């Protein structure tokens, strides 16, 4: 069973600061997805990365996939209170194409 480790577990910052959260795996990712979950809601997909070394940008969010496809990072520039939430990484179970394994998440709080 693949283990996904996310760090840090908690992060509290001031509005305007930059931050990076990480997702590491005990084995190679098939493909990796990042979700954001706001309080009282279900997770919502932010991005999928597939190729080692891939970088994707979504406004102020930059997602990086490690060359060896065993790690990924999410960098947020000039964080805003609306970025507050639980950030989850998930691996699509190799071969199945439909089952996701989730990390425990990073709980981000951006204070005004």
């Amino acid at each position: 069973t693949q283990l996904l480790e996310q760090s840090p577990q908690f992060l509290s910052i001031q509005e305007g600061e930059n931050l990076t959260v990480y997702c590491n795996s005990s084995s190679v990712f098939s493909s990796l997805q990042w979700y954001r979950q706001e309080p009282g809601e279900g997770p919502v997909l932010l991005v999928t990365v597939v190729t080692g070394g891939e970088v994707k940008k979504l406004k102020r969010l930059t997602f990086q996939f490690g060359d060896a496809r065993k790690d990924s990072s999410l960098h947020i520039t000039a964080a805003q209170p609306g970025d507050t939430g639980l950030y989850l990484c998930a691996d699509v179970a190799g071969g199945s194409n439909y089952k996701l394994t989730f990390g425990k998440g990073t709980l981000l709080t951006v204070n005004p």
Partner: protein
Amino acid sequence: NAGVTQTPKFRILKIGQSMTLQCAQDMNHNYMYWYRQDPGMGLKLIYYSVGAGITDKGEVPNGYNVSRSTTEDFPLRLELAAPSQTSVYFCASSSSTGTANYGYTFGSGTRLTVV
């Protein structure tokens, strides 16, 4: 709006009671899932279904049952509720060709407390 609808949003059960958590999707997705989310523990898969009439156990199936008689509906049944089943339950769906690209669509969850 199209998506995954879960009912109820909140429920308090007494130990030993039973209930059914409802989940419906209108996106014609083949795959449906039930997860539970406990603080600091992430999402754990309870049961999943790859199509009507087909279900399979996930990581934490004990104490739960599911059925999938239609593409749209995937109810989760709790028999003999226990305090360990206090959690937030999420239903999700995905298409047979789209999980790797489009991910899951989640409902907004059911917060269950067993007392």
